[in-house]
């Protein structure tokens, strides 16, 4: 399980490899907040390599989104598999996030 952060122009792109769960969500939170401190405004989290997100992982996404918006930035998501999409729909978080089907489309959308 690991988080990879890279810059595509002015967009901070995070890849979540494996799972985003109670045991590692703080690590993701810290990494993204560090980028926010360094002035990042546009954030994309790519879940193409993510098998699972638990409710605490969803919670971290919500609070990151709020913090980024408070700094005038935005957090977008890409590549949710069907099960993950269902979790976002059940919790209505699909109404809170802009979710793209592919990384490219997400990058273009900013």
């Amino acid at each position: 399980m690991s988080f990879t952060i890279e810059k595509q122009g002015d967009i901070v792109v995070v890849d979540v490899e494996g799972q985003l769960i109670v045991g590692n969500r703080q690590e993701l939170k810290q990494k993204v907040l560090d980028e926010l401190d360094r002035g990042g405004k546009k954030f994309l989290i790519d879940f193409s390599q993510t098998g699972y997100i638990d409710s605490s992982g969803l919670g971290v996404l919500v609070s990151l989104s709020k913090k980024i918006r408070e700094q005038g930035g935005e957090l977008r998501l890409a590549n949710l598999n069907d099960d993950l999409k269902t979790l976002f729909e059940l919790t209505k978080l699909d109404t809170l996030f802009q979710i793209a089907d592919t990384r490219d489309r997400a990058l273009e959308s900013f």
Partner: protein
Amino acid sequence: MESNGPMPGADRHPPVPGPHQTRAAVELEMPSDVRCIDAVVDLVMRQCQALRYPPRACALNVRVALTEALSNAILRGNDENPEKRVCVRTEVTPERLVVEVVDEGAGFDICECLVDPTRPENIYREEGRGLFLMAALMDRVERYTDHGNVVRMTLRRHD
């Protein structure tokens, strides 16, 4: 194309139907450590697969509900106290799956604790989606006290 003669392989024996599991039950204990959640969830998902539950019921409903129940038992019930254990009991039949998660905490009131996280006033909260997902993905979620705080979840087979 040849049209004479039997189909290739037509004279072979039909495949033997394998053994067909009709009930599986497991009891286990785990430490109050969230790193153990995956191994337990995997075991229960495999039981559901062996009883030929629909793949999505195994991969989504069982996985999510059990993961959330175990997190709550470890974090809320046992407060991650390494002296305290979580017990898991499962029974899977062709009709239904029952999973009980037992922690050493004081228990809680499901109705009070289950707050709808999709409502506008809650949607920005970081916490409070676990019980909601359990209730959404299982047919029944109950809580009772019996040598600890027991959360019992039932999923009927929907094919």
